[in-house]
């Protein structure tokens, strides 16, 4: 029996799983408060966590070679689905993100969150012996194809986050510094152009609202203002669990999903935030450590990108809630209520553990 469990957990990394579980405990407490002790929501949340942990466990057992085999098909499938969305997707709230399969609706951009970095990692892995600058160019095109499709939906937040995860692969694969710098400069040049021609009105408004939330206190600025008030009024030690006035008197929008950090921050204060930041930092450090111990280039690139993407999600969400980044629909990883996000993140960590722990079984 114990041998069974031993084998079941063989590919898990103890410290990382421990850290993730701590985060999940915070998540349970916060979702409980945010939902007003809602039984239905908590039940669903437990279920989501259970499924996500199961996925983590399963993924940790899938050897890297199998993952590499999945990389290309998953990418192609993802792109095809995105094309399908572009042609016949369902429009919800003004953007075309969903594909109706009759049985259920899926959001192909979610698949791309993992498929894109996998594809790029696989590409660099296959070209590793003869890496050329041209390969970075090809990789960038491979990335831009799904990113462009997602941006057109429009879903700027997801497309930016997927470009980030793709960029991390390029970066870790050794994208020359001068190109990175050049890219930064070019981006700065493109921004005014993009502002006028590429961004949708609502996207422009989000940015404008960020710069001056009080310009529209009851409209777009309302979320930011109320979230900032919640965070600020938490003070040093917070108002106490279940005692956040902004949360419980309904001033916070989306309080169990995208804006859950405001709930956490209001009730647990700066000390709570310090704990949360430390947990995130520890997970990222441990994750990067594991990533660099992966035996294959594919493993290292994919694992590193997964960890850095995880960081990006956390940073963007907290930045948005505390009013330094525009509002993009990004949940706080492993804290927000919501099955998809929970599953995607845990799948990522499952892959990370698989990549890091299968080294002895991999021939190089």
């Amino acid at each position: 029996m114990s041998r069974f469990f031993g084998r079941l957990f063989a590919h898990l990394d103890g410290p990382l799983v421990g850290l993730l579980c701590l985060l999940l405990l915070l998540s349970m407490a916060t979702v409980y408060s945010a939902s007003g002790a809602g039984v239905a929501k908590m039940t669903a949340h437990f279920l989501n966590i259970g499924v996500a942990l199961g996925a983590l466990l399963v993924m940790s057992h899938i050897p890297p070679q199998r993952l590499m085999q999945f990389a290309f098909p998953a990418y192609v499938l993802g792109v095809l689905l995105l094309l399908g969305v572009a042609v016949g997707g369902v429009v919800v709230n003004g953007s075309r993100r969903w594909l109706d399969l009759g049985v259920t609706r899926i959001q192909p951009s979610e698949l791309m969150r993992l498929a894109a970095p996998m594809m790029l990692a696989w590409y660099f892995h296959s070209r590793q012996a003869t890496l050329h600058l041209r390969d970075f160019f090809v990789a960038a095109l491979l990335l831009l194809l799904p990113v462009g499709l997602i941006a057109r939906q429009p879903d700027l937040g997801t497309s930016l986050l997927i470009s980030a995860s793709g960029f991390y692969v390029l970066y870790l694969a050794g994208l020359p510094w001068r190109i990175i710098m050049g890219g930064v400069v070019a981006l700065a040049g493109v921004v005014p152009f993009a502002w006028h021609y590429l961004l949708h009105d609502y996207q422009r408004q989000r940015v404008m609202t960020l710069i001056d939330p009080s310009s529209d206190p009851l409209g777009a600025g309302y979320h930011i203002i109320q979230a900032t008030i919640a965070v600020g009024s938490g003070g040093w030690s917070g108002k106490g669990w279940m005692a956040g006035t902004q949360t419980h008197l309904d001033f916070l929008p989306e309080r169990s999903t995208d804006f859950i950090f405001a709930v956490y921050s209001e009730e647990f204060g700066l000390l709570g935030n310090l704990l949360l930041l430390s947990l995130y930092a520890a997970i990222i450090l441990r994750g990067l450590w594991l990533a660099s111990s992966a035996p294959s280039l594919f493993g290292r690139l994919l694992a590193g990108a997964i960890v850095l993407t995880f960081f990006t999600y956390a940073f963007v969400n907290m930045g948005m809630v505390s009013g330094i980044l525009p509002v993009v629909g990004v949940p706080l990883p492993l804290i927000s209520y919501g099955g998809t996000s929970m599953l995607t993140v845990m799948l990522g960590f499952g892959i990370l553990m698989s990549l890091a722990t299968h080294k002895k079984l991999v021939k190089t």
Partner: protein
Amino acid sequence: MKWRLINPEEEFHQYRWRTEVAMVFVGLMLLGLFGRFVWLQVLQYDRYHALAESNRISLVPAPPSRGALYDRTGMVLAQNYSAYTLEITPSRAGKPDDVIERLSQVISITASDRKRFRKLLSESKNFESIPLRNQLTEEEAARFTVNRYLFPGVEIKARLFRQYPFGANFSHVVGYLGRVGQRDLQRLEEKGVSANYKGTDHIGKLGIEASYESWLHGRTGIERVETDSSGRAVRVLSRTSPVSGYNLWLHLDAKLQQVAQQAFGEYRGALVALDPRNGGVLALVSQPGFDPNLFVDGIDTDTWNELNGSEDRPLINRALRGIYPPGSTIKPFMALGALELGVRQAGDTISDPGFFALPGSRHRYRDWKKEGHGSVDLKKSITVSCDTYYYGLARDMGIERMAGFLGQFGFGQRSGVDLDGELAGLMPTPAWKAKRYRKPWWPGETVIAGIGQGYVLTSPMQLAVATMALANQGLVYKPQLIRSWQDPVSGKIIQAQPQVVRRLDFKAAHLQLVRDAMVDVMRPGGTASGAGGGGGLRHRRQNRHGAGQGHQTRRALCGKSGECPTSRPCPVHRLCPGGQPQDRVGRDGGKRWAWRLNGGTDCPSGHGLLVAGQIAGCACTRRGFRSGG
């Protein structure tokens, strides 16, 4: 860059280096976030704490209950009742017309409700709730409550309403409440009491309701309420209870008021009855009046235009703002002046040919009795109201002395009654005319002033106060409506003190002579012989046109003022005199008025009663006020 083989060792090295850079990057970013948290949660804590509190806590005013008004016998003149209203908050309800259309399928909404709502909407701010229907029945309230989810921004509220049981009987004295308007707000702001009016949407606009506004209103309480984002109250954190306004008891006598008002019939005019012992206002009539209850719900435009545009001017309080030439009612005061100033002795007689002429002028100032009164002494001049006597007296006194003496009685001055909007009237002097018209004073103007015509203007209230001076041996009280009030906190009732305005010093014999003459007015041979026995009374009817000499009174009027003997209780109908027009139709007018006053109520003071009344527009037009539209 050319093809190059990559050394796994070197590649791994590069990876480690890049990871380390990434770690530093991650660390810096997290540190930045932490800095932001410190800024928000520590450095800016006070500000956000305050913002969260003001989000959470709203101060809800608890409006006080307005004090009630009673007459001297305890009859209710104004009270509150609670009723359901249906109110719309436009900012939350969407397009008002659509909402009202849908609401009308649930409860009945009349065209005048809509009209009034539109008027209120145009006057109000968007976030205020505006009443659409008042006085919902229980059934209507229940029907709306069931469908409430269909109407965001529409609410049923229990509100206190003002009610005036006597309706038009007391329109001008008691006044009415109306919605707080822009100008009211400004005035409250200036007085620094606007905070006390939060949550109150009615304010006294006229009469006692206006002049005692600060007593009646009370003190607004405050509830600190925790509310959620949609403004729903979650719980009350603390509460300061409102303090009700004072209940006021007035000197007014409801029955006397009704009787006096009925006596006017269809004539326009005003009447003031005073209690000479303290200046209490027992009745104050201005005819025609209006129903103050119309204003409480917010008057609709048509009714308002009808009231405001009517030729009868029902909105004007004639008792205070109706200033007319006093006519013959001024004669007893002239007579007293003649004796006091030594211009005439009681026994001096004149021979009245039916007119008076100034020396060197052929113009005849006519007496109302064409053939004249024959030999007239001072007493007879009052009893028969002999104009010729006073033409001559006025010339001998001179306008300056007349103005000085009559001014002591309060002619041409505000009486100071506790109602707003009183007019001063006018006691003319040459200096006044020079300043006003830049013209000299003509002797003829003095002559007609002697019978209360020309420039002399007094209000019925002034006449009543002046008559009080005669009745009280020169003691004049300020006319007062308020008799007592009740402090709602202690429940104690406080009596209003009579206020002496002046003490006039007249020779007792002079006063007695004039008063005896006034009593004789109602005896056979007097001009009000039909008005009933016992009461002293002085009267004078209209002068159709101020005759000759430049100045024309357009307004014809009749006036009577009188005094009840201060010795015994007496039924009102016997002593309340009135200004029946003794016009061409008949000389029995005095009787008719006395008959109308026969309402059978006891004299409220038990002792005495002073009345001054005037009817305007009677002799010339004889127009009922209803026909005026």
